[in-house]
């Protein structure tokens, strides 16, 4: 009897101990470094860029470099896969687990309007060329790290084979595509539309180039019928339709995706490839050789006398969440980061800088601007546009797929868009 009682007591205390320890572990706070009494601070950083991560953790270790200036601050860098980055940050935000410093993708910037600390008063903000152009609700909530131009990469050998010159207008561009198509040897322009996003240089950016305004979508959000004939969006899409109708993307562009598109281009089976400057490192990593590679700006203008617009897309908006317990230290860090360290980073990983006084001399991309009086328009999507876009599930790249499928006329697509846009704005 006594044995039984003892056994019961032991089992009860074991169960209680297990449960208490589970609760204790669950409630413990792992983020204890930041409030230590000796003022030692750990700043957590997260990012998605491969090149940045390699530079910050191998080439020029950011933690060591910052420790020299602020010995009490430890920097921890975490890389999150680019495909998972946005969702990971959203999940962390809901769990109050955002890192102290992290870049926000421009597409999500307006979403983070209330989440991030305003950086209006930083010297780095004043020195950033694009910060004031990319404010959310009147505040700078992120400092862009890089700016990307869009290009058409081309295979020089194929151009030489067909005796082609760099096109300067949209019709010339289509003619170049047509000439290569007639040769029946190469795919003129690789566009793996199975992944709808690959047509963003056309379907997303061309309305802005047509309007000569990087914030054209924001203006569209103030109108009820921006898809009407004669409007920049309609005009741009008429040009795109002309290109799609020329069937210069291979046999079945909706049947192959991004992976096959870049494989075709690297293997020399495709003559051209439309993408941002970010694609260059991808091309080299996949075995592409620079000798045969050239770039030119997508010529969307009608005549050689019209202005030549090109997009400048700012990206990697470094910011600090309001939930950070080390906001003061994080601001100091950003001031430091966008100083000499940034200059070295931008030069090494060859990004087009966003800071005044940082020189940029990329000979490869400079060839695209030779002999062209190109005017950059800074791409930016504000809160109003994002609201309408989300309300009507506006998907320009999906429209590109629809145009390529060719089962609905452009006018019908545009009329539908006008109806939906008006309704979304009304809501």
């Amino acid at each position, binding site marked *: 009897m006594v044995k*039984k009682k003892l056994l*019961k007591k032991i*089992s*009860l205390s074991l*169960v209680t101990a297990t*449960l208490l320890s589970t609760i204790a572990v669950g409630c413990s706070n792992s983020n204890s470094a930041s409030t230590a009494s000796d003022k030692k601070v750990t700043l957590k950083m997260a990012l998605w860029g491969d090149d940045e991560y390699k530079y910050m953790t191998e080439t020029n270790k950011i933690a060591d470099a910052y420790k020299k200036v602020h010995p009490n601050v430890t920097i921890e860098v975490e890389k999150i896969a680019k495909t998972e980055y*946005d*969702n990971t940050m*959203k999940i962390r*935000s*809901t769990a109050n687990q955002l890192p102290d410093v992290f870049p926000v993708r421009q597409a999500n910037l307006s*979403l*983070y309007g*209330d*989440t991030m600390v305003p950086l209006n008063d930083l010297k780095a903000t004043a020195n950033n060329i694009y910060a004031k152009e990319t404010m959310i609700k009147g505040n700078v909530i992120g400092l862009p790290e890089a700016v990307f131009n869009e290009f058409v990469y081309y295979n020089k050998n194929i151009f030489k084979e067909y005796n082609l010159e760099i096109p300067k207008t949209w019709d010339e561009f289509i003619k170049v595509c047509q000439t290569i198509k007639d040769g029946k040897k190469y795919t003129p322009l690789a566009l793996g*539309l*199975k*992944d*709808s996003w690959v047509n963003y240089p056309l379907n997303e950016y061309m309305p802005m180039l047509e309007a000569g305004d990087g914030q054209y979508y924001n203006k569209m959000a103030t109108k009820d019928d921006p898809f009407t004939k004669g409007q920049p969006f309609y005009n741009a899409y008429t040009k795109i339709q002309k290109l799609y109708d020329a069937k210069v993307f*291979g*046999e*079945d*562009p*909706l*049947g*192959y995706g991004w992976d*096959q598109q870049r494989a075709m281009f690297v293997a020399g089976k495709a003559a051209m490839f439309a993408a941002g400057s970010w694609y260059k490192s991808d091309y080299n990593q996949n075995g592409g050789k620079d000798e045969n590679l050239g770039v030119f700006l997508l010529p969307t203008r009608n005549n050689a006398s019209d202005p030549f617009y090109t997009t400048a897309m700012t990206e990697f908006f470094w910011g600090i969440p309001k939930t950070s317990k080390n906001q003061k230290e994080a601001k100091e860090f950003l001031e430091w980061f966008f100083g000499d360290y940034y200059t070295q980073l931008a030069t090494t990983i060859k990004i087009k800088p966003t800071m005044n006084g940082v020189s940029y001399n990329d000979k490869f991309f400079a060839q695209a601007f030779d002999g062209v009086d190109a005017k950059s328009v800074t791409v930016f999507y504000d809160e109003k546009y*994002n609201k309408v*876009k*989300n309300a009507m*599930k506006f*998907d320009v790249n*999906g*429209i590109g*797929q*629809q145009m*390529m*499928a060719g*089962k609905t006329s452009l006018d019908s697509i545009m009329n539908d868009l006008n109806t939906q846009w008006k309704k979304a704005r009304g809501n």
Partner: protein
Amino acid sequence: MFKNNVKMQKNIVLVTFLFIPTILISLFMIYPLIRLVALSFTSWDGLSLTKTFVGLTNFKKIIFDSPEVWLSLKNNGIYFLGHLLFIPIELFLAFLLDKRVRYSKMFKTITFLPYMINTVAVACMFIFLYSSQDGVLNSMLQFFHMDKIGWLSDPEIVNYSLTGVSLWKFSGIHIILFLAAFQSLQTDMLEASIIDGASTFKQFYHIVLPNIKPVVELVLFLNVRGALQIFDIPYVMTSGGPNHASETFTVQTINTAFQYQNFGLACAMAIVLMIIIIIFSIIQKKLFNLKG
């Protein structure tokens, strides 16, 4: 005293054994479900600290103002019908595999293998098979001097191509379930019918089928649930394209939440889907039992 002691011990054992599963179910099923219901009445964007209560607006929007959602449900219907039509074939294959063919063990393994392979791997494999550039299927068509087919690029064909992948992947589990039901049948009934001179079809229709009814019901339920919740195959293979032609209800829900930043609406869509599955299951069960 002794009785009380035993009762007490029983209770301790019960509480000890049930505590962890109860906590797990509460944490991972009941709590998320409550949160899901609560969020479905808000216009939360997935990030803001504030969650504005909007009442039944999300549900009204889904039912009366979202034709794209109902179009995506039509795509789910193709998976549902495809699998439903395949159930008799699965039944027949299971019947054959139940020691009626040679090397049945080997065939059972082969049948079940696709189910064991990761769905993403299956999807990637079929992307190559269906590819318009250098896919096996189109190469075969060309070998027979036939035109290529846009398996994944033609909006009218894409859903059937994807249903084919789903059938390849999930038929194995249905066949194994039927097989397990066949093997649990008492052989004396079948032997008696054989003595009475019943044909194989009559044995199957009058003895086997009524006795495996609970398993058939289970497979039918799994079919409804699976077809309405299908996500991974269209998401990996086409991302719902071209131009939303292969979007299923769940792909729409994910896009609503993560691409269009409307978590409130997405939660409401998840609840609507849950209700649709329950309604379909009840209707199916009633129809199935009508005949019985």
